[in-house]
């Protein structure tokens, strides 16, 4: 029978064709590799992390912080805090966990196998930053059980406090791995930010440590750690961890992409436009057609620094380091030198002249002024820090939308966080329910741990 069967198969194969492949071979996808080198994994980690700087969570932060302003479509609803659980779904899924964090995890594991600490260090720095931003947006998020594939299909949520601690630990690990690495840490390409410069990455890691110590400063009441880290970080904008986007439609910055692909739906908040009147930076932040202030100049033209396709986007910058130092100084006394340095850095990164005149026009170097200046300086590339600063300090003073109350935001006040993504309700419901319960329902108006 068996012989007959194989004869039969042979006959049929002869009559048809291409039977040379076995069933197993047929099921191997010829279009996708099963393994790739770290030099081909790292480029996407860096582009994705930089791309996230202009995607929905940051644009929404810009809107509720009254720098950006919804003109049309969904963005109009965001003006009034209609931010349902669908709004951050794409970011949560393919921007964050199954996006840049996934790739960082793959790189970290592979770097350990291949003994290439450079990639492990860089991936941990990027991963820590992405976790830190996400914790600031959502409060409690999965961390310790995340990215385990089938081993943990329904990961539990860690408290925001634990995530911030984990972020600091991860950055310390990265610094020690990079510091201890010999011969370039096994770098063989793919670093689109520093091209394998280990020292530059160590400075960036200190910069991120400074940022996330600031996030928790309201709870710790301590600026010294942040200042200490900022002092070990980059000392000029030339050392920023920046990603250079391109003018092409397949390689351009997300903030410009939105201007091109969702035209005329997003503008500049009139109050922010008024605030920037007379400020030399206004012309690189926004433009007006006479009636409306736009954040993106049509056809990708004009002077916009951040809302342009070929933007050079810092993931961490000297501007932020300088403002961290200024804030710490202002909290305890005179900050005029630090504020001047920070504003100079802001003008410098934008390529705008007239910093000195501008600094001279400021009334004082008070805490309030420092935070207000940070608000202006962070526009466009650091919306998450504008949001974080405002939630910590309440500066500048913002008036909530008159139509801001509703089922998602009962008090009508300016949101303190984003709702968890609906995909979590659908795939990880017990854990996300527990996280909501642990944070007083976690509606938009409930402050996260760091800002309570």
């Amino acid at each position, binding site marked *: 029978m068996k012989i007959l069967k194989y004869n039969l198969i042979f006959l049929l194969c002869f009559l048809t064709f291409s039977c040379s492949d076995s069933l197993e071979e047929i099921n191997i*996808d010829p279009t996708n590799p*099963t393994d790739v080198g770290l030099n081909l994994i790292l480029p996407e980690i860096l582009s994705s992390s930089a791309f996230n700087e202009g995607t929905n969570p940051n644009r929404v932060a810009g809107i509720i912080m009254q720098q950006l302003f919804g003109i049309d479509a969904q963005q109009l609803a965001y003006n009034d805090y209609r931010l349902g659980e669908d709004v951050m779904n794409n970011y*949560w899924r393919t921007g964050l966990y*199954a996006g840049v964090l996934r790739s960082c995890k793959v790189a970290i594991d592979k770097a350990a196998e291949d003994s290439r600490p450079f990639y492990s260090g860089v991936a941990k720095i990027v991963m820590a930053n992405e976790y830190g931003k996400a914790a600031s947006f959502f409060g409690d998020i999965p961390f310790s059980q995340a990215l385990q594939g089938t081993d943990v299909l329904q990961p539990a949520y860690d408290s925001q406090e634990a995530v911030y601690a984990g972020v600091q630990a991860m950055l310390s690990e990265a610094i020690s791995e990079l510091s201890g690495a010999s011969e370039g840490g096994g770098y063989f390409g793919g670093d689109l930010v520093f091209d394998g410069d280990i020292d530059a990455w160590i400075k960036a890691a200190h910069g991120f440590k400074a940022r996330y110590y600031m996030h928790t400063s309201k709870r710790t009441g301590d600026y010294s750690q942040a200042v200490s880290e900022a002092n070990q970080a980059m000392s000029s904008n030339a050392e920023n961890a920046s990603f250079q986007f391109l003018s092409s439609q397949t390689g351009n910055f997300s903030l410009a992409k939105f201007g091109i692909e969702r035209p005329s739906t997003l503008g500049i908040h009139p109050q922010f436009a008024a605030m920037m009147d007379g400020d030399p930076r206004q012309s690189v932040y926004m433009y007006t057609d006479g009636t409306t202030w736009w954040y993106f100049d049509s056809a990708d033209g004009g002077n916009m620094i951040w809302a342009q396709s070929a933007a050079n986007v810092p993931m961490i910058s000297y501007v932020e380091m300088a403002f961290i130092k200024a804030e710490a100084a202002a909290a305890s006394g005179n900050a005029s030198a630090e504020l001047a340095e920070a504003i100079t850095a802001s003008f410098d990164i934008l390529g705008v002249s007239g910093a000195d005149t501008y600094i001279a026009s400021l009334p004082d170097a008070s805490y309030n002024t420092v935070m207000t200046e940070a608000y202006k300086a962070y526009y466009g590339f650091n919306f998450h820090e504008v949001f974080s600063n405002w939630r910590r300090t309440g500066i500048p003073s913002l008036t909530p939308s008159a139509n801001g109350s509703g089922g998602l935001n009962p008090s009508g006040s300016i949101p303190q966080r984003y709702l968890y993504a609906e995909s979590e309700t659908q*795939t990880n419901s017990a854990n996300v329910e527990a996280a909501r319960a642990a944070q007083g329902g976690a509606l938009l108006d409930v402050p996260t741990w760091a800002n309570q």
Partner: protein
Amino acid sequence: MKKVLLLFTMLTLCIGTTFAQRTVSGTVTDTDGLPLIGANVLIMGTSIGTITDIDGTYSLDVPDGYNTLVFSYTGFSTEEVDIAGRTTIDLVMAEGELLEEIVVTAGGLEKNKARLGYAIQNVEPDDVVAAKEVNLVNALNSKIAGVQVVSSSGSPGSSANIRIRGSKSINGTNDPLFVVDGVPIDNSSVGNGVDGVDQSNRAIDINPNDIASLTVLKGPAATALYGVRAANGAIIITTKKGEAGKPKISITASYAMDQVNKLPEMQSTYAQGRVLSGVPTYLGPSTGNGFSWGPLLSDLEFDGVPTEFDQNGSLVAAGTGNGVPARAYDQFDYFINGNTYDLNASVSGGIDATNYFVSAGRLTSNGIVPNSTFSRNSFRLNTNTDLSDKLSIGVSAAYSNSGGNRIQRGSNLNGVMLGLLRTTPTFDNGNGLVGQAAADNVSSYVLENGDMRSYRNGIYDNPYWTANRNPSQDEVDRIIGSIFAQYDVMDNLSLNYRLGVDTYTDKRNSAIDIQTNAFRPEPGFISQTKITNKDINSDLFLNYERDLTDDINMNLIVGYNIWDHHYNRQTTDGTTMSIPGFYHISNATDLVATEVIDRRRIHGLYATADLSYSDFLFLNLTARRDQSSTLPIDNNSYESYSASMGLTFTELVEIDRNIIDYGKLRASYGKVGNDALAYRTQSVFVQSESGGDGFITTVQFPNFGTNSFERSNLLANSLLTPESTTTFEIGADLKFLKGRLGLDFTYYNSKSEDVIIDVDVSAVTGFTNATLNSAVINNEGIEIVASATPVSNRNFNWDIDVNYTKYENIVESLAPGLEDIGMAGFVSTSADVVPGQPFSVIYGNGFQRNDNGDMIIGSDGWPLQDPIKKPMGDPNPDWTAGVRNTFSYKDFTLSALLDIRQGGEMWCGTCGIINYFGTSQLSADERNDVVVFDGVVDNGDGTFSPNNTPVALAEADPTASFSSFYRVRYGFGGISEMNIFDTSWLRLRELTLGYTLPQIESLGFLRGASIFLTGRNLWLNTDYPGIDPETNLTGDSNGFGLDYFNMPNTKSYTVTVRLDF
């Protein structure tokens, strides 16, 4: 066309002449001497015939050269009687086998339906052709119990979705298997997403005019022989064959006119603009304002200075212009009368041991949207030759060439309906012209400076721009063919081999032209796609038949099948065009190339045995073992089997024939195994993208001077096992009143287990999907086919055919912890599967409700949105029915097919958006309303009190800001719950009036002629507020119930002339 009509007219005039013929008359009775009413009397070899009247008598004019009459009557044995010069022929007919309906079952075997133990239904090829549908799938609509057809739209060549007994698969196809002359063919469609254009499903390549028979196999007992690929049922098509004799030529020509059949109601009272500081303010096209919440038209007039936006001038406050009042333009004059020409010719016949059928068809369709087209050219050759007493070979081959120009639709700034329905009443898209004339005149959609002319100054495409500047063309070349050989080893044993090939290439080119408006600069986009698909089927089988005893007959088939599938799609997307209006890929600045390959192969060994005892007990057993490439190599085989039994109890026991003429009970049980999608056993890396936004496209590698790969978000599974569906089915087939009343009832219950799904997993795992054996899906339903002949006499006949379908398709469970899988749609509202819910629910956001189900209202009087999304609507109908009434009077036939659908909801995303923008009639009607929402206020202590806070829905409250309007405050398009509507409908799907010229065969060369007038979709009664709810945004995908600027559906009027020579 004109010539055909002329010929037809001439022939009609000739008929007055008398032909040489004689009259034969007589009486037909049964063995008891009772007259048989409505028995068929036909002149053999012609379509000329009559039926007996109430006394059983008939009279028939028989032309010279014809000598045999055929008498037939349901429940009686058909008799052929030689006239032998007689003028009176009385006949006593003997009761015989009641149902002589021949069906084609799995394996291409012809069987008598009466001998089967499972449900199977034939569709008359005439009914398929008479539907005058371009797409074969649409032609099956409302004609078969248990079969649901949803077309995606009325666009030329658009896809249609067909489901037999609901859905079983979440990622894979739910399409039945289409089999043409024994060869399974591809009916996939590629590219029907929430945006883009309406693409075809590939069954559209079949020319309905070539079909000789079409049988629908519903359950596993019927389909187990095909194995996994017929897990969703099968549509078995046999094409026409030649018969020995002189060549017969048949020509059919038809012309159809199509019109849009239903559109949403739009307002014509308020102008473009929005509320600024509490005042509705006019904001014209140059401002880019999108809303129509402006002042009353009666408060505005023209200033008389022509502009490019309006030849009548700009709008100004009444009393400050030229006195010509503002006017509302009719946006729907965009739609034109579409038309379809369909010409088919065939020659068939036989010479010696060879018979042949050759056909050619050409169909050209122009849609209701300017510049939308579809055409199909098809050719077929079927031939069969007996090489010897024992060996015969045959070929069935068809070539088709189809394609057209498709127009952008859906969630797409370039979409026709999106731009059209958002257009404010005070803007004239056609700039003084309408329809095709406006589409052909560049001044309707382009300003002098080259910018697009549109109501929002470029933000949404003017639909006339879309028709011209966003081309999307496709061309499919396809060959479906098979060769067949049969060798009769012995009288009752034959060895058969069939090799089938279905291969096509689908070339697509589309572009979005450069646009320069300041409000929406568009750098231009060009895409070029080439799809090749190849399915090879090789079947070798033995067929053995033997009478085991006098009473027991056995038919045994054993066979071996190989199916090899190879799909390849190569796409090059180019962004940033250099030259406007030059739509070739060379004109793009940045290119991204992708390739998708799908390969699979199945080896199948199968056997089937039919046993019959006497003429009343029938048993059918089938078994099939498949080995599939898509499963892990160690666990890649699975079995399908079935057993079915039929018992004709009216043959077994004596039952008074006045009560029941014929009765058969059926029962069957079957299990069909199923494999996985390709490439699910090994995780891979894919070329990297940076995304995660949803509003914008991604950054794609290679880029920044390097390539990059990322781990795929699909977690593969090397431990997959086959899935299975088991079905239990019982039924009865009953005939009463001498066959004039028939009832066929089927109940089935099927359960799919270990369903292989790419389930959604928490993205926190680092994957978005994992391939798992999970999900249990249950499906239970009843199908009723009833027929009646209330009147049947010599000149007049009235038939009623009813089919009724009711089923419940419930997803019992998904993977542990998994609450939802999204299949199609948007971030806000989507078509999902949810455990405990029907297959495919509309999932979205709603209002908060307390335990009583009362809506919870905020202290400000507005309903509160629920932060958690939920299933909000069920698109599955409670039941559906098709009712066909056919009246024949002499040579005239009038047939009407009513389609009834009860229940089933649809998300009218379109409604939400046009209410939001203020262009809908509802937004005008509500504009001055102050309402108290029906609901309760949460007292904060667990109790609720009735809401009594009035709120102004819109402009009735001058202090309210614009974004507090009911239709605006919940965000873009409102929340899902506000836009879910019942789609119950009653529609006149087909109305056909036919006339067959009698007895003109003596003209010699002309054997027959007929003319048909067909109306399709002429009348629709539904409360659904949008376009015809029988459309689906995502075409023939698994998710349905979504309407977001879908292309509208059409109605049509067709005239068809058929001539036989």
